[in-house]
């Protein structure tokens, strides 16, 4: 059964496709039906699509969002302008300010410098996805308590960077917080309070409220 699976037309077209490309995957011929199906999926994925809009499915905050997007649409654009998720902000649109920071499988990235089409298959978390059962997460709460914002435009980005840091480093030092937040800029100059908030959320708060956190 294993080896005598009839070649279906799909597998054939896969082979022809690969042949036209040159070397690879002679092994596909003897592969199990299941593998052939997986290979087929890959073959389809190797097709050129666009430049017109194509279906794109994003997994944002645990929900599937189906969109029709041109390949050139950035993840930030897809969130803000095609999905009404305006939590991630657009500041520079050039990977220099951090306002658009979202989590990409738990790692903070700039949504402005990633194409939506390549975010498929990854878990995206925006600031809208942090609260659970109507309760803000500890970073958000610490931002309120430490008055870590003025206009608030940079806040979602900082909150995402710090949330990501605290997922892998439970008790960061002030220097580690600064390293993690170096890619986020606050135009209002709230950095000292933001640092306090991060440390508070991590439970490594400085003893005195008036203690000055120095920047090296």
């Amino acid at each position, binding site marked *: 059964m294993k080896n005598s699976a009839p070649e279906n037309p799909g597998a054939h077209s896969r082979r022809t496709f690969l042949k036209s490309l040159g070397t690879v995957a002679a092994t596909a011929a003897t592969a199990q039906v299941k593998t052939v199906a997986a290979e087929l999926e890959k073959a389809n994925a190797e097709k*050129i699509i666009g430049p*017109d809009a194509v279906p794109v499915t994003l997994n944002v905050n645990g929900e599937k969002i189906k969109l029709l997007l041109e390949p050139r649409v950035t993840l930030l654009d897809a969130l803000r302008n095609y999905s009404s998720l305006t939590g991630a902000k657009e500041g520079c649109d050039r990977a220099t300010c951090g306002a658009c920071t979202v989590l990409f499988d738990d790692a903070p990235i*700039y949504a402005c410098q990633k194409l939506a089409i390549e975010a498929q298959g990854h878990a995206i978390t925006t600031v809208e996805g942090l609260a659970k059962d109507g309760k803000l997460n500890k970073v958000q709460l610490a931002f309120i308590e430490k008055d870590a914002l003025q206009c608030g435009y940079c806040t979602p980005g900082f909150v995402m960077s710090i949330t990501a840091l605290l997922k892998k480093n439970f008790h960061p030092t002030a220097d580690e917080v600064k390293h993690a937040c170096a*890619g986020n800029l606050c135009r209002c100059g709230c950095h000292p309070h933001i640092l306090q908030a991060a440390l508070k959320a991590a439970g490594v708060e400085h003893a005195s409220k008036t203690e000055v956190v120095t920047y090296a």
Partner: protein
Amino acid sequence: MKAFQYATAHSTSSARELVGEKGAYLAGGNDLLGLLKEYLVSPETLVNIKSLPGLNKIERGEKFWTIGALVTVAQIENNAEIKKVFPGLHEAATEIASQQIRNVATVGGNLAQHSRCWYFRHRDVKCLKKNGDLCYARNSENRYHSLFTGNDCISPVVSSLATIFTALDATAIILRDGNELRWSMAELYADAWSQRLAHNSLQPGDLILRVEIPLARSRSVFLQASEKHAFDWALVSCAAAAEIENGKLKSPRVALGSISNVPHQVAAANEFLNGKVLDDAIATQAAAMILQGAKPLEFNGYKVPLAETLIRRALLKLKGDA
């Protein structure tokens, strides 16, 4: 940005086929999306190479380590073994851009990134590097530009990885038309030295597969001086690597970034340092050799003493004195 077609490649041969002569490979996208947004490049097809198998691994070997082209800068930063075996590489990775960028930026993309000259990056300026007939930087705002150049473009190479890979004598393996080429860092950037239009020696369709780093130098350091404390490009970067046996330098290499359109290395200085017991006088002499022939422009003269200091500091740190 202009509209483009898009494809995901699952093998290097299909990647080559899909990219054709007018496409571009998409890795982390940090550089490419910036270029696209300013209309500096308009590829017909973007070929996502992040699904190519086997290229996202750091592999230990007896004689050398292999770093796949899709390994991210964050992977290098977070690798405890790299920190021990190639401390300079770890230092370079840690200082590149921001966490958000390091999480997606790849080794291949970092090496192949384009010029950061602000005239080049401006969509309305058509300078020499864009086939225009004037270098705007030469007689104008050139504070971030080169002290050395092999042509009339003075835009420096800025890849931090290129600087440390040069000091570590790493080899880049390039796939060209089905054949693997083995290039030193000098070869990877040779065309940027000789041709104003080039950022490196890659031709359309050339794919960086991996970088091999020999285990010949157990000591390595990377230092950079920037205007900002963090998340900033280097004004000058300096990497040094060597073995120290009986207090003497063995196979030392010093390389500088952001002062030439190639990673700047002077063979005579490496030879001079070989077998020497390092002290400040030797380090100062080496720095003078490395910077000999520098041609400062109106606003980048500060780079000469800055580079000299970084070379001395890097060498003394290599020895363990600083």
